[in-house]
């Protein structure tokens, strides 16, 4: 609306941090007008502080960065390798990518990750659904159509990431979930009545009792700032939407958060703060964790979700494990209504935050 005005006003204004260079951007988180160099500095420093304060990494650890080739994981890989050098974290960093086998989407984004491997000098490991499960997403979609396909993809990815991490023998996986993602998850868990997930979804490290913990160094980093950082740094990332879930970013909750951010940028941080402060009894029951009798992966049931889904695929009964079977309530919740409704409340069926 006021690009002209902004140009005029911003034209001569100095960066309010260094008071030296000309302001080049309005910082989405605080609306401060600052220069590019100061933006890089505060952006990186905030992430460094998050890492230090939450003791995300210990010296000598092997860390896998979940790399999709998208903006979040690309910026994460870049920033982590920078900070690792600058502050001598002493980490061995790796890129870990999952090849779901989606032609026209993942094959292209994997090219980006392969370039990142060279650009940042981080070794890359690619785990494919085909190798792990014998099915590509293309084949799965051919069989089951475009309903519930995100359930398969999400369940399979969660396990694939863990198996890849085990192969790399890493101590931890870092993912690129940003503040907007976490705020959205908090809201969604309220909207869905999922108190157990509500209590967990704001923790910066999850799965500490499991084999390989995961952490989110971008927990307090705004999506807009990540885009801005990638844009100014001219980072090489891939920005096409998944062809099987093209409208994944247009959920009600996501739009609501964007609207909130317009009125009050701080709202995203406030939602996360609320999520952290909620008075939830620690006695909230968690499903007992066991191991899958078939593949040995962690599971609360006899078979893990991936094995149930896989069994359905292999027996030609792909509906197995999907839909209104009470015992599978946790994953049923993720896809509340696979109807033809134009919009869902949720934006990302894939890449859910819960591990």
């Amino acid at each position, binding site marked *: 609306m006021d690009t002209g005005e902004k140009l005029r006003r911003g034209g001569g204004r100095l960066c309010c941090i260094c008071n030296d260079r000309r302001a080049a951007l309005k910082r989405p988180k605080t609306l401060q007008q600052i220069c590019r160099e100061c933006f890089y500095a505060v952006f990186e420093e905030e992430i460094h502080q998050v890492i230090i304060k939450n003791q995300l990494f210990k010296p000598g650890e092997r860390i896998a960065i979940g790399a999709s080739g998208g903006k979040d994981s690309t910026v994460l890989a870049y920033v982590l390798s920078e900070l690792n050098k600058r502050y001598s974290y002493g980490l061995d960093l790796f890129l870990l990518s999952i090849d779901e086998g989606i032609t026209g989407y993942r094959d292209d984004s994997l090219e980006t990750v392969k370039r990142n491997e060279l650009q940042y000098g981080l070794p890359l490991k690619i785990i494919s659904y085909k190798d792990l499960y014998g099915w590509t997403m293309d084949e799965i979609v051919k069989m089951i159509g475009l309903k519930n396909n995100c359930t398969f993809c999400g369940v399979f990815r969660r396990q694939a990431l863990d198996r890849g991490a085990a192969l790399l023998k890493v101590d931890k996986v870092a993912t690129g979930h940003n503040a907007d993602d976490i705020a959205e998850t908090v809201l969604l868990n309220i909207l869905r009545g999922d108190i157990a997930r509500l209590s967990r979804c704001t923790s910066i490290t999850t799965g500490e009792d499991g084999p390989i913990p995961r952490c989110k160094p971008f927990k307090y980093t705004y999506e807009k700032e990540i885009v801005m950082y990638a844009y100014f740094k001219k980072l090489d990332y891939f920005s096409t939407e998944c062809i099987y879930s093209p409208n994944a970013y247009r959920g009600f909750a996501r739009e609501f958060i964007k*609207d909130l951010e317009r*009125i009050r940028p701080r*709202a995203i941080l406030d939602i996360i703060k*609320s999520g952290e402060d*909620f008075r939830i009894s620690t006695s909230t029951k968690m499903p007992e964790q066991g191991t899958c009798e078939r593949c040995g992966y962690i599971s609360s049931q006899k078979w893990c979700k991936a094995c149930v889904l896989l069994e359905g695929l292999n027996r030609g009964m792909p509906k197995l494990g999907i839909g209104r079977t009470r015992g599978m309530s946790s994953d049923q919740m993720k896809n509340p209504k696979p109807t033809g409704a134009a919009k869902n409340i949720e934006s990302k069926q894939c890449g859910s935050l819960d591990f």
Partner: protein
Amino acid sequence: MACNGSACQSGCYRDGYEAATPGDGAAATAPDNGNGNATTNGLCVKCKVNEVFSDGGGGAGDDGRFCAECFRSNLFGKFRHAITSNAMIAPTDNVLVAFSGGPASRVALQFVHDMQYKAQKNFDASRDRSLPVFGVGVAFIDESAASAPSSDKVMDMAIKDIKSIVLELAPPTKELHIFSIERLYLGDSNDQRNKLKEVLDAVTDPTGKEDLLGHLRMLVLQKIASENGYTRVVLGSCTSRISCHVISATVKGRGYSLPADIQYVDARWEVPLVLPLRDCLAQELNMLCRLDGLKTIGLPYETCHTINSLISTFVALLQEENPSRESTIVRTAGKLNPFAFNRIPEIKDINVPLATRRRQKRSNIKLNGSISSESFCPMCYCPIMPTELGILKAQEVSSDSFDASCCSSCRFQILPQDPTRMEDFYSNLPPLLVARATRRNPPDPSSLREHIQDYLLLDSENEE
């Protein structure tokens, strides 16, 4: 686990069933079996005699499945259940209904009246007249001083309507308190108006201004109640309203204090607040107003673009997409731990019949033993998280200063960001609010006593 057996009657695979009863919300406790047919035949799912009444709206809450009579009794049932199961109103109480003129508080007034009317009939019929009838008063807050100058005529008309609504209710008569919000200040009416304007104008954030007005409204209710001997304040907060509050508190970073505001009872005030319409949807209340011709008054207060208005639009959209969404939101937030003050304080007065005290003791919520001495934000009166309080104390040199004791949300959206303007702002706050701030939330001795009760040998402190 999964009901794969053919004998399973739970109906979870019958897709058609769900489509036929879109109003089957989570809160509804309709019989599970056999109502599919009744609905398609257009008969009430409860009495199976009368036809379902339709109002065009349909699909929301319990309407569209009930006949008018069952709808009414179901809604009143939810209200009465909230009252009795939380010991909200005892026969000795004097109840003040906060009436805004909107449908929710109109229904609250009607239902409280119905209950009082029944109690009076029982009283008249009983021989020993041991159970007194609780008293009812009505409060209306005139906020015209806080909004843009609208014509006095509109407010005069509204007040006239309200008077007639209260008058038309059958006896026992109810006292009506009409209170202009600026009367929180001392001085003549011009002074009052100016001071209120100044304090509101100092709040630059529109959401903050709206919320501040809400806090002042609560102060007014407390003032009316305590000055006129009321023992309960009835609010018309319905599920829809509360679900919006859940989201807005979350968005404002008030996750810690959120459970304090959304329970049936909120006794952190001198006169406890009760929310008997907590389980009723706004659609249902609107419907009842239309059905029974209950007159409501829409006041022409301006609506501005705030976080709160954005949230009501969002929740309305979600509710449209799924008619049980609002109930789910309130149910989720209901699982957060309430505070010690979210129950009616136990009656110690020996003049109150023993039966009443016993009933109250039985129905009150049980706390899991944690003794709590909360600190409250002097602005919005929300409990402050202990860790946040620690940070505050560490940061500020004088932790006694007003702004240092406020919660982070109020500091951001209500208090002036410029510290030099703080003093001005503080001096313009209503004396009642300031008085609260200077009182240093002492621990409630009676609640402390309750915890050591079993170990005390003497009955009262005086005997020592």
